[in-house]
């Protein structure tokens, strides 16, 4: 009897300990104000409110733009927390020491007012803040990392496969060559032992004479033809490349990566190249546009300290010095090109001419930018005439032709369109 009771006692004790342990883990080193509702409904309602209104600056257990929120009602009275959420500036102005210090600690970053939240909303919000899920941030970063990894891995696979396939092919061919050589030697040896007539013996024992092959007319002719063709091709290619800067990819004063900004982060080209819809040049962004983000983003991948490349932007801004980017696309002065015309009216994508910029670490000239290249596009590109009264007459005039209305039909091949 006694032993039985004690057993129950032990089990009970263990149970309580476990509960206490989990409670301690869950609530960490503080206790929420007891008046905060911890029902599931309140927490769920609070979570929705939190995600719409708080998430961008706060996390429950992590410092972000603002402090980690869990335990807020432990650090200040519930009513004060509520009035702070509603109008933080008023609470700070009233001289509350805790909130004034907090405000200073976070570099006087103002929290916007949330006067629209009802008392019930606030209760639910606090319920979520104190009792909401703990595993959330970790899970979020984990999925984020996984996605990042998948994106990074996506680009390289086909090329690697190609190299592997080529390598395997070469190895297989070499093996076949060796095997054939072996077969020949074995057969020769076998035949040498047989009884053969003179002709056959001569045939079997003949050696491949390399010197003879080199001296044969056929060989000389083939090699000469090959060499001449190769040299002629290099020379012609060289001549055609005069004045063409395709492939020019100079090093820039700041190692800016389009692959990161336009590729991974999906910032649209026009965000920085603001002139592209307005005029001739697409514009290289001035440092203030960089600073829209880099005021806050001081290093890559959240690393500590200021990246030396980003520091160059800060130096340029501080000293009012222009950043001397190197121009990549240098169209000769004898040809006129207007970005807005092509991008707004022609609806040409940036990548059509500039190539896969979003994959380039260092930008290089993708297209040849020769006159033939321009003309080719003008010959092939059809014009979208629907819903544009400007083209009505042209469409009417063009209606006899079998071909669709193309840029060449509206003056796209006129010399003076580009050369004047």
């Amino acid at each position: 009897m006694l032993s039985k009771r004690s057993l129950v006692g032990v089990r009970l004790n263990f149970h309580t300990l476990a509960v206490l342990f989990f409670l301690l883990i869950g609530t960490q080193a503080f206790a929420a104000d007891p008046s905060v509702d911890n029902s599931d409904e309140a927490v769920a309602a609070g979570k929705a409110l939190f995600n719409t209104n708080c998430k961008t600056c706060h996390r429950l257990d992590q410092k972000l733009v603002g402090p980690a929120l869990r335990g807020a009602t432990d650090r200040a009275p519930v009513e004060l927390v509520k009035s702070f959420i509603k109008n933080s500036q008023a609470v700070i102005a009233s001289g509350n020491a805790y909130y004034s210090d907090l405000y200073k600690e976070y570099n006087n970053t103002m929290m916007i007012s949330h006067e629209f939240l009802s008392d019930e909303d606030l209760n639910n919000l606090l319920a979520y803040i104190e009792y909401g899920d703990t595993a959330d941030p970790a899970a979020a970063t984990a999925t984020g990392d996984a996605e990042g990894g998948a994106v990074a891995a996506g680009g390289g696979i086909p090329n690697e496969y190609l190299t592997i396939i080529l390598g395997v092919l070469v190895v297989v061919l070499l093996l076949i060559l060796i095997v054939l050589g072996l077969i020949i030697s074995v057969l020769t040896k076998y035949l040498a032992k047989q009884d053969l007539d003179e002709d056959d013996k001569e045939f079997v024992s003949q050696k491949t004479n390399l010197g003879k092959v080199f001296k044969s007319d056929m060989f000389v002719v083939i090699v000469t033809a090959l060499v001449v063709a190769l040299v002629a091709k290099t020379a012609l290619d060289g001549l055609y490349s005069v004045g063409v800067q395709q492939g020019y990819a100079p090093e820039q004063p700041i190692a800016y990566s389009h692959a990161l900004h336009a590729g991974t982060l999906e910032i649209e080209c026009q965000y920085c190249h603001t002139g592209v819809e307005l005029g001739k040049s697409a514009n290289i962004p001035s440092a203030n546009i960089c600073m829209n983000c880099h005021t806050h983003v001081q290093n890559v991948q959240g690393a500590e300290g200021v990246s030396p490349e980003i520091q160059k932007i800060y130096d340029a801004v501080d000293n009012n010095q222009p950043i001397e980017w190197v121009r990549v696309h240098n169209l000769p002065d004898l040809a006129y090109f207007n970005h807005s015309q092509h991008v707004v009216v022609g609806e040409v994508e940036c990548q059509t001419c500039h190539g896969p910029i979003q994959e380039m670490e260092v930008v290089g000239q993708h297209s040849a930018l020769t006159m033939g290249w321009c003309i080719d596009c003008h010959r092939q590109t059809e014009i979208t005439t629907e819903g544009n009264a400007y083209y009505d007459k042209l469409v009417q005039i063009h209606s006899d032709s079998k071909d669709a209305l193309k840029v060449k039909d509206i003056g796209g091949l006129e010399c003076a369109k580009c050369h004047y």
Partner: protein
Amino acid sequence: MKIAKTLSILGIAVAGITLAGCRAGGENQGLEYAPQMYHSVAYEPLTQIMDSETKGDLISTREDGKGEYFNSNINNPHNMNMREPVANTVPRNKQGYLPYRYKAFEIEEAGTSMKNPIELSDEVLTEGKRLYQLYCTPCHGTGGQGDGKVGAIIGGVANLTGGAYVGLSEGHIYHVITKGKGRMGAHGSQITPENRWKIVHYVKQELQGGQNADNATATTEVVAEADQDVSQVETPAN
């Protein structure tokens, strides 16, 4: 005969390789065929040849004796080709907009006294959406919920559909786009005033469901008439 043959083949090979070297790539800009026709004599946007010494094969005809390709403006700071407007002059764009005059901190005044000069229409909303996606989605996300990819890095991006923001006036939104607020930088230099108002229409009507869209008109009937000239004012970065 043989020597002559070898020499001629060698000559062609050398010529070929030399010509192949003209090809551009990496730091090499390649050979220019007619630099005098390639380089702009007039000042050219985004082009600034600072080298005043190099002269081409032909004799430079410049009166100032500088190299024939030099096209920087010696009268400007850093020899740049562009220049800020003369002090105390007031630029006006094609639509007659004057520079924005509210300072960054005058957010209350801007929010109550400005009225969207662009009439609301389907085209304006479509255009507003396009512009929003160009300039705002990196941080605010396609739905305006502050969940853009860049916003995730910067942090503290406003959820435009959140309760604290849906009631804001159009003038307030315009002011914040122009001058920035909190962690958001000023986007006045990137987006033209008309386009900013189109974005305001889109944000107000589509993302925020039209709530409090005409706040500014209700409070400032009187100012509204003079607005076209006075209140869509825009100062160069201060």
